[in-house]
């Protein structure tokens, strides 16, 4: 008992800092598990798949018969899938807001033909934010380069600090994984239901 108090006194100065670190770690962990739950749950996947189907049907009914001969056919579905995915994020992440914003910007451009892109880039000044840690980690040219490449892969994350970038990347990856799972399941369902439709003419299902 006494030895415990002794050590406790010794570490009295750092205990506050360690508890602060612990709290941050717990916050980070709960944040990350919250992220994973958000994208890993089956219900989220199901909801996404249903919304995707609805959005796709709205798209195909809007455009007069989408010519499958167009190589851009896959592009349409990809855009819709990304947009529905971004909406599932409920505006809490940078990448999702960037996807929705870029879509909006494109439609504005197409409709009004104003140069919205110029004003957009001016309103977001891209100044590098050097912190002590970033300098230390980015002094290795390999890491700095990889960070730059990563920032280009995650939408809307070009000039942000490394911590934010890593957070966004983690959420983005979890979301993409869900997108792949949902679209795979959807593809299977549609192809199976089509097989049933085309295969069985008058025979009844068991």
């Amino acid at each position: 008992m006494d030895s415990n108090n002794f050590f406790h006194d010794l570490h009295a100065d750092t205990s506050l800092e360690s508890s602060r670190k612990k709290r941050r770690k717990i916050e980070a962990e709960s944040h990350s598990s919250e992220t994973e739950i958000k994208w890993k749950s089956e219900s989220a996947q199901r909801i996404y798949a249903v919304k995707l189907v609805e959005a796709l049907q709205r798209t195909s009914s809007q455009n007069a018969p989408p010519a499958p001969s167009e190589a851009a056919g896959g592009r349409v579905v990809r855009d819709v899938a990304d947009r529905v995915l971004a909406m599932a994020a409920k505006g809490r992440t940078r990448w999702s807001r960037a996807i929705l914003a870029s879509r909006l910007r494109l439609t504005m451009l197409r409709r009004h033909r104003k140069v919205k892109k110029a004003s957009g880039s001016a309103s977001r000044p891209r100044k590098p934010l050097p912190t002590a840690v970033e300098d230390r980690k980015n002094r290795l040219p390999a890491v700095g380069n990889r960070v730059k490449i990563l920032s280009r892969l995650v939408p809307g994350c070009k000039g942000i600090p490394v911590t934010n970038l890593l957070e966004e990347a983690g959420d983005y990856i979890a979301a993409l994984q869900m997108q792949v799972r949902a679209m795979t399941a959807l593809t299977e369902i549609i192809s199976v239901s089509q097989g049933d439709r085309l295969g069985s003419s008058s025979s009844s299902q068991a």
Partner: protein
Amino acid sequence: MSSRRSRSRQSPGSSRITEDQIADLVSKLQRLIPEIRNRHSDRVSASKVLQETCNYIRSLHREVDDLSERLTELLASSDTDSDQAAIIRSLLM
């Protein structure tokens, strides 16, 4: 959200706290990426994690593109009508 991050830069012991945050986030990425998760544990350099993250995101993008193409073909070959939509929805639920 950026205001929350700048708070850590102003406090004196900021560099140590921010390094922990980075280590946490890197380890979180590690857990998400199947390649790293299956092979190593805890001894992967940040550079390797970043590299694998980029590769993984690119492969996920490719998968989504392929799935989009397949979906396009499937949806094009069948005229999507309300019946099929109802079937799909019931199968999904």
